[in-house]
């Protein structure tokens, strides 16, 4: 049987995938450009016996997710840049309490109120601990509506596996454009409380459970932090993901993620058709950043071009991965500006 295709926006694909993946709690607050997501949840979550709440504030929404996750549900929130800034306190507590959760950031222009155009200026906030404390979120960067759908199920699985918050970092282009997608079999695990023995379900037949991030006794917090660090090392070891295109013989390797990688991919194909040895590395996990692909393939005669809808944030991770062993150049625009295929080709021709 042919697989059915349906036409959706990236925002709707994330929402649909979440419900398909067994997410049964959504709390959010309206903000452009992610409003299709919250509207989809309002229309569909209760039909799937889940909970939808339009929260009074971003801060409340993320803390409702904290509670729902503590209760054992697959839970998520979504927002866009200024709203994600408000959620940082809650994300830090979720990381500190080792709760699984999905946070979707459909990034818009900043700083401040910025605008509602697509941007990639929240990379630092997503990949470094955006709130207080030594923690990381796993960060997934879809580049198509299909990946918006596919990565949402993956995000919940990773969140549950590592008991950690996972961020899907999209942008206004990806959130609002429509593409046909193929629906996968739901990756959902129908979660029962015994799958999450730490969840707060009432202490019947067991000792009382406590969900907390507070360690006041001397030495306890350091011990807990070391436990977190060990988990982050495991994630770095096992969960790096990227897509490579014509990387093996490339003299110039473009590095771009999300929507920007779509444009970079077009530029690579156009340049290849003219015989130029250009390739693309598209990080799929922004944290853990796919360092290994850079260290494995480095030779001294190649150059890198990092392209972002920001003024050089992922650039720093590429520089760290390459560690001075090759030349790294940068092309970026933000605040609504998007480097075009022509801009990229011009820059590559200068570098060749």
């Amino acid at each position, binding site marked *: 049987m042919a697989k059915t295709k349906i036409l959706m926006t990236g925002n709707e694909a994330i929402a649909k995938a979440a419900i398909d993946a067994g997410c*049964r*709690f959504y*709390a959010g607050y309206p903000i452009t450009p992610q409003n299709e997501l919250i509207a989809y949840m309002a229309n569909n979550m209760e039909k799937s016996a889940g*909970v939808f*709440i339009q*929260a*009074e*504030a971003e*801060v*409340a*929404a993320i*803390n*409702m*997710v*904290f*509670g*729902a*996750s*503590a*209760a*054992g*549900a697959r*839970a998520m929130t979504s927002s866009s840049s200024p709203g994600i800034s408000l959620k940082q*306190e*809650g994300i830090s*507590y979720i990381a500190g*309490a080792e709760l699984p959760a999905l946070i979707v950031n459909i990034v818009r222009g900043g700083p401040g109120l910025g605008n509602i155009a697509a941007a990639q200026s929240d990379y630092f906030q997503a990949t470094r601990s955006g709130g207080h404390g030594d923690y990381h979120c796993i960060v997934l960067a879809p580049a198509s509506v299909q990946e918006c759908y596919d990565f949402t199920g993956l995000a919940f699985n990773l969140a549950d596996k590592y008991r950690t918050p996972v961020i899907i970092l999209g942008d206004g282009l990806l959130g609002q454009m429509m593409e046909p997608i193929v629906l996968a079999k739901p990756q959902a695990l129908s979660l029962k409380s015994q799958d999450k023995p730490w969840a*707060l*379900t*009432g*202490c*019947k*037949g067991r000792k*009382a*459970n*406590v*969900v*907390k*991030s*507070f360690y*006041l006794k001397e030495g306890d917090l350091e011990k807990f932090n070391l436990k977190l660090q060990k988990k982050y090392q495991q994630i770095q070891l096992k969960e790096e993901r990227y897509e490579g295109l014509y990387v093996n013989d490339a003299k110039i390797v473009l590095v771009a993620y999300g929507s920007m990688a779509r444009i970079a991919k077009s530029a690579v194909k156009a340049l290849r058709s003219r015989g130029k040895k250009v390739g693309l590395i598209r990080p799929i996990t922004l944290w853990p950043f796919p360092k290994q692909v850079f260290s494995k393939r480095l030779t001294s005669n190649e150059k890198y071009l990092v392209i972002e809808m920001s003024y050089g944030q992922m650039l720093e991770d590429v520089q760290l991965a390459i560690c001075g062993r090759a030349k790294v150049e940068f092309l970026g625009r933000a605040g609504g500006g998007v480097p075009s295929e022509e801009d990229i080709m011009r820059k590559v021709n200068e570098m060749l």
Partner: protein
Amino acid sequence: MKIYSHPKSLRNVSTHYCPGCGHSLAHRLIAEVIDELGIREKVIAVAPVGCAVIAYDYWDFDCSEAAHGRALAVATGLKRVRPQNIVFTYQGDGDLAAIGTNETIHAANRGENVSVFFINNAVYGMTGGQMAPTTLLNQKTSTSPLGRSAAAQGYPLKISEMLALLPGVKYIERVSLHSPQEIMKTKKAIRQALVNQIEGVGFSLVEILSPCPTYWGLSPRDSMAWIKNTMIKEFPLGIIK
């Protein structure tokens, strides 16, 4: 005849509370009521930042920490996912009526079927005795060293009276811990708030006036007298809704 037993819901440990503090009493009353209602195995408590943030070390049932002010958002998530469980928050005045005012008003307005135990001691205890939204006029604290002035710092916030305006709120009573009679009334109010939840009545809040001798600069005995003679004038006891 049994005259004393240790509540099953209360761990047999010493608390970190100061001498004469009301928290230990309030913890115990809640534990006794939970035992009496036979709901220990269904309870999920939320203790946000404040003196009682480690209440989970004292209560022997499932507990969640919450960030400062966020208890009712966390409780909303817990209760909506597990409507069959009994969810209550235990919040101080700074938590419930300052940094968490938004969460408080909107959880109440949604009529969340949870119980709220609101400890009003007119001061921030955990951080060392700063002015709270409920600090009385002329009351000296480390951040109102000359005494709270209405002109500079506004009036004590009567959040219970404010919440009573909301249709989603089903029960609000203000009680006190300053005498044995009032302690018994407090226990009755705690029971009412939990029974309401069991029966699906809706949002219930018990405001408990509670002594903080350390940051009031009074002896435990004088603290009880201060509640009786001064605090109650600003925060009158009784059923508000």
